[in-house]
């Protein structure tokens, strides 16, 4: 009896350290942030001295044009970069899914950008975008074109940060898509060839549908990440010119450090958190649906033997 009880407790005993660390490192700060979002809190005050204002921060934000602009820029940024990255990443994977000499080297080269620290990526692109000594404008000039205001014009600045992000994160989608492609059943592809499918038809009717589960998860992961992007934009444009590239995480950091509105920054973080939770929940639902479907199919097959 005694041993049986101990045995039953063993798993929880092993889980306990991880659970404690989770609580301290994750739940405590989140709880702190949620609480802070209900306060009118200046960094010079201790948290106990701050005035409790209820939902005022949230309501104020909804009416704040700059916040709405920031929110819109973030949405636009996430949608544009993730669409481009999906298109390029999946396309590259489809192109490079073959055995030719040197392919493994090429694949490694393709995923290098992902391994560079975002700050470094930001600095690197800032030099390349430099109006006079940057490689782009020098090249344009030597070819006789006018220089482009990469980072000083609102529209161009947005495009510039998009290009940098696409450069860095396309490899992520590329390697996941490639892995998905290479795990597809080869014989189904051969059957399609014999059934008369051209290269395009194989991609559209066989490869993409079979890759879809991986692609959906990849898309959601990338989307969650794109909403949180900070460093590259911070280094490249610091949100400017104007608010043209001021994504939410940048605005949050500025609200806290420049405007000294900790409560409002916390409320903003919570809006972002809610958005990300919706995405995460969508991913969870999708996984659940896939699992349920697989279970149903298995059951049907077993019943029908």
């Amino acid at each position, binding site marked *: 009896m005694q041993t049986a009880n101990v045995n039953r407790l063993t798993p929880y005993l092993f889980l306990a350290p991880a659970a404690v660390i989770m609580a301290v490192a994750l739940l405590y700060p989140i709880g702190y942030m949620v609480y802070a979002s209900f306060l009118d809190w200046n960094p010079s005050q201790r948290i106990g001295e701050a005035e409790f204002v209820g939902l005022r921060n949230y309501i104020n934000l909804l009416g704040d044009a700059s916040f709405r602009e920031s929110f819109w820029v973030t949405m636009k940024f996430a949608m544009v970069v993730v669409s481009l990255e999906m298109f390029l990443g999946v396309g590259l994977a489809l192109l490079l899914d073959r055995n030719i000499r040197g392919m493994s080297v090429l694949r490694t080269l393709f995923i290098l950008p992902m391994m560079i620290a975002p700050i470094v990526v930001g600095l690197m692109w800032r030099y390349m975008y430099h109006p006079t000594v940057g490689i782009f404008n020098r090249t344009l000039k030597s070819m006789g074109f006018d220089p482009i205001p990469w980072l000083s014009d609102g529209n161009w600045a947005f495009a510039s940060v998009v290009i940098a992000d696409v450069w860095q994160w396309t490899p992520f989608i590329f390697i996941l898509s490639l892995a998905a492609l290479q795990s597809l059943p080869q014989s189904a592809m051969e059957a399609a060839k014999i*059934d008369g499918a051209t290269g395009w038809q194989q991609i559209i009717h066989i490869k993409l549908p079979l890759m879809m589960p991986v692609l959906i998860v990849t898309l959601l992961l990338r989307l969650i990440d794109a909403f949180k992007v900070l460093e590259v934009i911070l280094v490249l444009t610091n949100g400017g010119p104007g608010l043209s590239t001021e994504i939410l995480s940048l605005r949050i950091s500025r609200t806290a450090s420049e405007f000294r509105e900790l409560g409002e920054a916390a409320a903003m973080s919570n809006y972002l958190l809610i958005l990300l939770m919706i995405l995460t929940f969508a991913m969870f639902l999708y996984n659940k649906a896939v699992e349920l479907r697989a279970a149903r199919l298995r059951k049907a097959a077993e019943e029908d033997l």
Partner: protein
Amino acid sequence: MPKIVFDKVSKSYGSVEVLPPFDLTLEDSEFTVLVGPSGCGKSTTLRMLAGLETLSGGEIYFDDRPISKLDPKDRDLAMVFQDYALYPHMNIAKNMSFALRLAKASKSEIEEKVTRVATMLNIAHLLDRKPAELSGGQRQRVAMGRALVRDAGTFLFDEPLSNLDAKLRGKMRAELAEMRDTIDKNMVYVTHDQVEAMTLGDRIVVMSDGLIQQQGTPEELFKSPVNKFVAGFIGSPTMNFIDGALTEEKGVTWVRGDGFMLPLDADLGKRLQSAASKDVTVGIRPSSFVTDTDRGAAIELKVVVAEYLGAQSVLVTRCGDADVLVETQSTSPIRAGTIQTFGVLTDEIMIFDKASGLRL
């Protein structure tokens, strides 16, 4: 339904030659079975025919048209794969109609063909299901159905039954045999199972180590194999091979070995006169033994194991150092551990050259 001709076709992977150049002709509307142990090159041959592998040399002709540069889709063929290769994301109806839809067939035509084939194969009630919802045997039928809805001139089968359990395999084999007689198409069937080959093939091509050992009707292969490999591969239980030496006594050629001495038929004896070496391998099929010693030359065998299979029993016996399989009717039970005298039907004895394995 073209006549298919392999003309000096060969296949190498890098410097490894898996198929040395060979010629092979598959007649119009014939059911040809390529059979051999794994790694003998039979699947590679089929895949080259399908266009899934390139040729390293030679050319394949459909009638007089060279096809080795054509895409699989331009070769007018349908194929059934070993693992069925169904499209997991499409339901059965979509799986079966994929080729027709790509060919932009009309909706009514697609529906008519799918329904007809599905009814024929007994899978009409499964059309809405996904492949994962089917049992192995049903998937097999769908794979077959997917090939059949296409009115291709040539059907290729790559070990289609090898993933099924024994009972289902027997059933599907019988259905295939029936289908073979009703469908007037070229069929090329690859298997490692000689029973499938014997029951299905109009003509069998036996391959080993990338070489075509022999081709012919099932009966030809069984009755007059050209070498020891074919003799051992065709027929179940497999032929017994015992080392022996040829001698001549009283005008009769005898073969003598450890624990036996058997007279050979006059025809065979005459043929053996010119044999270069007197060292031979004797081949006797398990079915060539009879319990009635009056009907054949006597041989004494020590019964080691008696395997009861129902109407028949297979006895594992020992003749000198060699194991010898004997097939008998179960009506006259024979106990293990006894020494028995059997008759050998001498006209069914085959003699092979010991060194080359060729039949003499």
